[in-house]
């Protein structure tokens, strides 16, 4: 599904990713752990196509095609989804309007029929319920005045509506209490499927107790320095990141 080879990325003139190799197959969940500043968010932004990230070396292949020439929205239509570490507040655009515009844009790009208002409403309520996202929240401006937990649940709601094939979750656990974490993890687990791959970025093992990964990587100073099974997460929890300090 995703093949990253010797990827070097510069941000603001500084090389942040310094030769990443990563292969993620359909059906797999990969965790990327690492100290603050190691480049985890940089990798997720690069994959989603944010401007300002210069690839100086290496390649990113997604579903057999070069991902890098695609625009941000083309990537989304092709099934790449990033759950933001810090979701952006957008005053004046209600969550509902945003969700409908996003879903229909993606459906259109994928050659699917756009949903009319009643069908969309039914679908969004169905997806929102298990995430404890109430109608009231959908009527508010996107992320404006949302608590940390509400923001993260809104991200997972977007993900479940857009049905990506490659989902990247950037520290979706940060700022969540244990109950909120469970709701979010359940939402993510419900989307696990043989056709879908996930990259779960986290600082802590805690999330990985609920979203059990197939592979765990440790990112340090812009490089993947260790790769192992899910037990690696537990080991890191005990030893800390001292040996990988940024």
């Amino acid at each position: 599904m995703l093949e990253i080879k010797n990827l070097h990325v510069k941000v603001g003139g500084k090389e942040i990713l310094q030769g990443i190799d990563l292969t993620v197959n359909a059906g797999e969940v990969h965790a990327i752990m690492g100290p603050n500043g190691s480049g985890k968010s940089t990798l997720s932004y690069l994959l989603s196509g944010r401007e300002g990230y210069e690839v100086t070396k290496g390649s990113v292949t997604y579903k057999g095609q070069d991902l890098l020439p695609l625009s941000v929205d083309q990537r989304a239509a092709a099934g790449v989804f990033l759950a933001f570490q810090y979701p952006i507040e957008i005053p004046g655009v209600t969550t509902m309007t945003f969700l409908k515009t996003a879903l229909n844009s993606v459906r259109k790009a994928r050659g699917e029929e756009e949903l009319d208002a009643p069908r969309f409403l039914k679908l969004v309520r169905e997806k929102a319920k298990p995430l404890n996202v109430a109608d009231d929240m959908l009527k508010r401006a996107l992320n404006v005045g949302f608590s940390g937990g509400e923001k993260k649940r809104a991200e997972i709601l977007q993900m479940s509506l857009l049905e990506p094939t490659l989902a990247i979750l950037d520290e979706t656990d940060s700022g969540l209490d244990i109950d909120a974490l469970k709701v979010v993890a359940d939402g993510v687990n419900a989307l696990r499927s043989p056709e879908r791959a996930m990259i779960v970025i986290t600082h802590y093992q805690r999330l990985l107790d609920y979203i059990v990964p197939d592979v765990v990587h440790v990112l340090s100073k812009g490089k993947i320095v260790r790769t192992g099974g899910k037990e690696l997460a537990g080991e890191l929890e005990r030893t800390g990141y001292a040996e990988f300090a940024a």
Partner: protein
Amino acid sequence: MTDAAKTFVETYERERGSLPASGLVWLSARRDAAMKEFAASGLPHRRLEDWRYTDLARALEKASVVSAPLHKGDVALPDATAINVFGAVDRHVVVFVNGVMQTKISDLPSGVTVVSLSDALSADWAKTLVETRVSDAQAANVTALNLALMRGGLALHLAKGVKLDKPLHLIHLAGDDGASHRRNLVRLDDGAEAVIYESYVSAGATNYFDDVVTNVSLGAEARLTHIKVQDEAAGAVHLATLTAALAAKSYFSSFTMTLGSALSRNQTFVRFDGEGAQAHVNGATALRGRQHGDQFCIVDHAVPSCTSATLYRTVLDDASTGVFQGKVIVRPYAQKTDGRQMSNALLLSRDAAMNAKPELEIYADDVQCAHGSTIGELNREALFYLRSRGIDEQSARQLLISAFLDEAFETVPDDAAREGLRALAADWFRLALKEDA
């Protein structure tokens, strides 16, 4: 004196005897004095503080300023969004061509006084309104020009407690090139209520000067809601002056949507004459090309316990220019004043420019006042976020621009009209997309 100013002086000499109600001695005397005042000061120039950012004299050098002909023939209403925006509302429609009321195609409400300016001028209430000076600001010389040459317009008078059954939609069509100076008079006696919509569009004219002065006077507890859409031709100059004098506990709400004309200036002067009154002066502007749009607003809290709020939202594309000059004056005696004003501008292009000058002049101590202005660009983070959800760049921009203007539309106290304004903004945006493509 500029050529345009000279033309106005000559026009007055030529037309003095044929202007409406020229038989009224008081009016002829006022017109003569006004023209003298105008001739002495000329058109406003940029050395005047109130006109620092808007060069009216220069714009009028290019505009056709001889009087537009009095339009007598039949006209068909153009199929313009700026008119249709109020289409969903059951309303009275009054059509003006070059400022002159077209009674044949208008639907005037009955039981109230809605007449053309010339028919109104002999009435005492109209005389009082024409003679009211709401502000000493440097707007005076353009209102003097209007007073001297005013020819068409509407006069609405509601007696005590009368509520207009439906909104009154004034459709101002520019049928021919040239200048038309018109005056609208609106007097609501105590407790009267009205909703007035206005649309300014061209019906064939391309090069013209619309000079409109509207004088509003509200009695105690009277309520007036005014919503105006200006989408004049690309070569037009639109100058609109609105004065409002508010008696105790009256309510005045004015919203101006500006889309058209080469240069436009809306200058609004509100004066509180009685306690407990409220004024909302808001607007939304969207410009492109080399358009210039100026919103000038002075709210004078001359008595205690009144509330005023002003919000303008401006979107500027290409090499367009926006201006906001606003002032809240709180006189020494006007305690418990609540006065707010805010201008927010969104620049869509590097060549667009916004000039904003909000001012407070406060001479009382127990007041709540706030003012401010912001000038910004579309938030790149927000654009990225929307696009990362599959929304293409143009749609993402449209969502953010609509959201920006929507805060201004939220101030419109009329649901149907608010929806119409939203649709109008969406239309503006679609045109921008077409031009970019």
